[in-house]
């Protein structure tokens, strides 16, 4: 009666082998590495860059122990920290000829030194949280009200333009806290205006109001348009943060949306919070300036390339390599830009970027373009205090309405990237840091050691007690408990769940709780033996009867664990993940694994006189 079919043993053996396999990468430690990722939205890290890295390393006689490309970029694994630093310099020199304006981020990193075949089956070491590896964590809150205000501002401009185009006279347009109010002299004009606005600006919900003397039209943003605006603002802010963090040279930054209006930023390994904050908070912007036409001749350009730039101008090189002199005087800044979307030119069907300016911006732009037909205007992206000419088109006609199109010599991908770049240049809405955590690397290492020590000493104490108290059955219980630890670590490695210090505490606690199942079983077997059952019958009854209790008690624990997982955040979540996983693995290991051991040892014996489970002879 105490025999398992062969498949059960196979399942247990398989589980243990898989557990070992996925736990294995945690023992290899980490090797120094250099990571290359793109610092600009328009640049992709591809095979060509990989070849350049390889060549640069070969030229300076550095032998990497591994060189590969993954989702985050190119990673170069090196033998020691000395060659790591050297390799970083060499690669940075090769990829970024101008160190002031890097195209690629070259960062120091640590890579698991587990063999490639383990990585190939997705066996990776556990993903350590910031409290264990050191780094900075920010929670940023996006000011959604400001995002909506900005949208209202641009709608005011749109209404003004639309009414002017249709020759509808109004007596004033104003933005109130929650909407736009347009005033008219008579009812007829208001009805006409309402029709135009409804057609052209579907985002607005319109309503009539006003007394005899004044006819008012009030527009508020529709709820679905509000939602869209807010989602857009969040997305744009995340994109902006990505661009800025690239500059910091962080190996594996995490930038994620949390809830409806928050962004989590985690920068492992970064210690300088002040610098990190400064970079997160800074605004990169768009600038529109005029090209210095008087000095755009070969001689002046050649001189400018040598550093002799005419007074009041700046020297830039366009994307296509054309040198350019641009006036210092700024026509428009990115503050006036409300949107940038990729699209196509209406006439030529060429890829283009459509910019939308707010009311003031639109007016300035119209005036400037009217006065400068036939001249060139440069659109610059000012990033990291340095400008780059995105494009410098010739103005062909007066451009009113605040809708500007940039086109010419662009692929669809470039149009997408440029639109992204322009949008990402500035934040859609201001952000505020609502939570911050910085952990130094020494504290991280200390935390790992302390967490590990608590787990090991707890485990050893329990093991010693179980073996002394329940003898052979105690030994089986300890083996089962070890497999529980093995499965738990393997699951954490496999799922790549973030392991934090509370997570390690949860491992220790789970071990202490998981032994409950084995104590229940062993006590029950003793009780059956005392009541006069044969050893085989006692083992059978012990396991069968304890099972219901074990399931019940684990489910109540799991309810608490799940509540923590759902409502917890930060450290509590780290605890809850491990706690819940531990409860699941413990049911399997303490019931199935320990029973397999018992069955293997005793199940096949016909005449089993006694089992070693401690003293059961008292009455």
């Amino acid at each position, binding site marked *: 009666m105490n025999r398992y079919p062969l498949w059960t043993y196979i399942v247990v053996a398989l589980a243990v082998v898989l557990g070992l396999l996925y736990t294995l990468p945690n023992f290899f430690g980490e090797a120094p590495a250099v990571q290359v990722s793109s610092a600009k939205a328009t640049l992709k890290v591809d095979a060509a860059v990989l070849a350049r890295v390889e060549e640069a390393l070969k030229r300076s006689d550095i032998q990497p122990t591994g060189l590969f490309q993954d989702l985050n970029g190119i990673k170069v694994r090196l033998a020691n920290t000395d060659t790591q630093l050297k390799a970083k310099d060499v690669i940075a020199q090769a990829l970024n000829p101008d160190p002031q304006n890097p195209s690629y981020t070259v960062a120091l990193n640590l890579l698991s030194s587990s063999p490639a075949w383990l990585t190939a089956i997705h066996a990776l070491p556990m993903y350590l949280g910031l409290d264990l590896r050191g780094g900075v964590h920010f929670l940023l809150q996006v000011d959604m009200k400001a995002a909506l205000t900005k949208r209202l501002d641009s709608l005011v401009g749109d209404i003004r333009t639309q009414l002017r185009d249709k020759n509808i006279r109004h007596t004033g347009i104003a933005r109130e806290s929650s909407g736009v109010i347009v005033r008219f002299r008579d009812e007829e004009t208001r009805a006409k205006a309402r029709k135009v606005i409804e057609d052209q600006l579907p985002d607005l919900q319109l309503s009539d109001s006003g007394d005899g003397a004044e006819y008012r039209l009030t527009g508020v943003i529709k709820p679905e348009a509000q939602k869209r605006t807010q989602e857009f603002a969040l997305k744009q802010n995340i994109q902006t943060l990505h661009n800025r963090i690239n500059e910091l040279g962080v190996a594996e930054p995490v930038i994620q949306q949390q809830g409806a209006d928050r962004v989590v930023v985690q920068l492992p390994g970064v210690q300088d919070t002040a610098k990190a904050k400064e970079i997160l908070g800074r605004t990169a912007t768009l600038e529109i300036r005029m090209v210095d036409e008087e000095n755009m001749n070969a001689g002046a350009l050649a001189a400018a390339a040598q550093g002799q730039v005419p007074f009041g101008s700046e020297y830039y090189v366009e994307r296509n390599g054309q040198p350019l002199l641009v006036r210092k005087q700024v026509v428009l800044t990115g503050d006036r830009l409300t949107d940038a979307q990729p699209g196509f030119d209406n006439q030529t069907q060429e890829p283009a970027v459509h910019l939308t300016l707010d009311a003031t911006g639109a007016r300035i732009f119209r005036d400037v373009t009217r006065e400068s037909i036939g001249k060139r205007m440069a659109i610059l992206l000012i990033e990291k205090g340095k400008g780059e000419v995105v494009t410098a088109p010739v103005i062909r006609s007066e451009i009113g309405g605040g809708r500007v199109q940039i086109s010419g010599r662009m692929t669809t991908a470039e149009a997408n990237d440029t639109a992204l770049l322009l949008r990402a240049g500035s934040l859609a809405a201001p952000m505020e840091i609502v939570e911050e955590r910085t952990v130094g690397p020494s504290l991280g290492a200390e935390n790992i050691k302390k967490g590990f020590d608590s787990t090991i000493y707890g485990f050893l104490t329990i093991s010693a007690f179980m073996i002394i108290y329940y003898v052979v059955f105690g030994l089986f219980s300890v083996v089962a408990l070890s497999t529980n630890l093995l499965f738990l670590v393997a699951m954490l490695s496999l799922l790549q769940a973030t392991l934090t210090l509370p997570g390690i*505490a949860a491992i220790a606690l789970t071990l202490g709780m998981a032994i409950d199942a084995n104590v229940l079983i062993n006590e029950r077997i003793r009780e059956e033996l005392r009541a006069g059952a044969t050893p085989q019958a006692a083992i059978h009854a012990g396991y069968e009867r304890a099972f219901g209790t074990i399931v019940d008690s684990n489910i109540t624990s799991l309810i608490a664990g799940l509540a923590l997982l759902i*409502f917890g955040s930060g450290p509590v979540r780290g605890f809850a993940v491990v706690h819940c996983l531990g409860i699941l693995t413990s049911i399997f290991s303490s019931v199935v694994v320990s029973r397999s051991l018992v069955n293997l040892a005793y199940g096949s014996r016909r005449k089993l006189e006694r089992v070693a489970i401690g003293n059961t002879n008292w009455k």
Partner: protein
Amino acid sequence: MEFFKIRRDIPFMRHALAFNVISLVTFLLAVGFLALRGLNFSIEFTGGTVLEVSYANAADVEKIRNTLEKKEYHDFSVQNFGSSRDVLIRMPLKPGQESAALSRSVMEALSADDGSATLKRVEFVGPQVGRELAENGALALLITSLGIVIYLAFRFEWKFGVAAIIANLHDVVIILGFFAFFQWEFSLPVLAAILAILGYSVNESVVVADRIRENFRKMRKASVTHIIDNAITSTMSRTIITHGCTQAAVLAMLLFGGAALHYFAVALTIGILFGIYSSVLVMSPLVRWLGVRREDLVKPVRERKDEAVV
């Protein structure tokens, strides 16, 4: 080896009243401390900034206090953290205060006094996040309690569900009472520990309830009191051994886990100790007073065979 050679059932139920009085008194004391002193919430809940600073030699807490006072900071607290060389500085929230600027200016002042001062950790929590955390914590506690009552009601009987949750919430209040009395810092990990204990202590009640149900079937002539006494006595060795093992794990955490896990382990220790007491000696009398009967648990004879129960 055998610790518990108990030959006769211990008449726990005879002393039920005494147990209930003890529980009630500790419970009321805990509530009193909570009301009078309140919990010492960590900045995770209240909002504010915490800096952990490490020195090469033993830190002079008094001097640090003076330095900060000179810099016009108020309402902060400075204390040793883990060792004499590490200090923890807590700063309250101030409107318009940037946490980066704050940590920088504090560190500048401290480094001027002692060059070996290094910043190990900074935590800043805004007021809004803190409120949310407190709300979510309370919600988690509520959901867990409800979930457990529903599960036990479904698996046993509503009387067990209600009795178990009263017994275990009484544990939670007592842990909170300890934290209020000693003004230990109540942080997020402590909250996690309390919820884990809630789930864990209920195990105890489940084991005893399982045994009570089984006894109702086996001991058809026995009185309810006798059945409960027998259930508690026969599961007692398992109760003590299990809790001892869990306590061993927690003790390791308390001794080796360092300052970061200290109060987490303390909360677990109190929870485990009171968990033994309450889930056995509070839940069982409650069940009896709620009037548990044989018919509540024992289904008609036909169905009985299918269920495997301890």
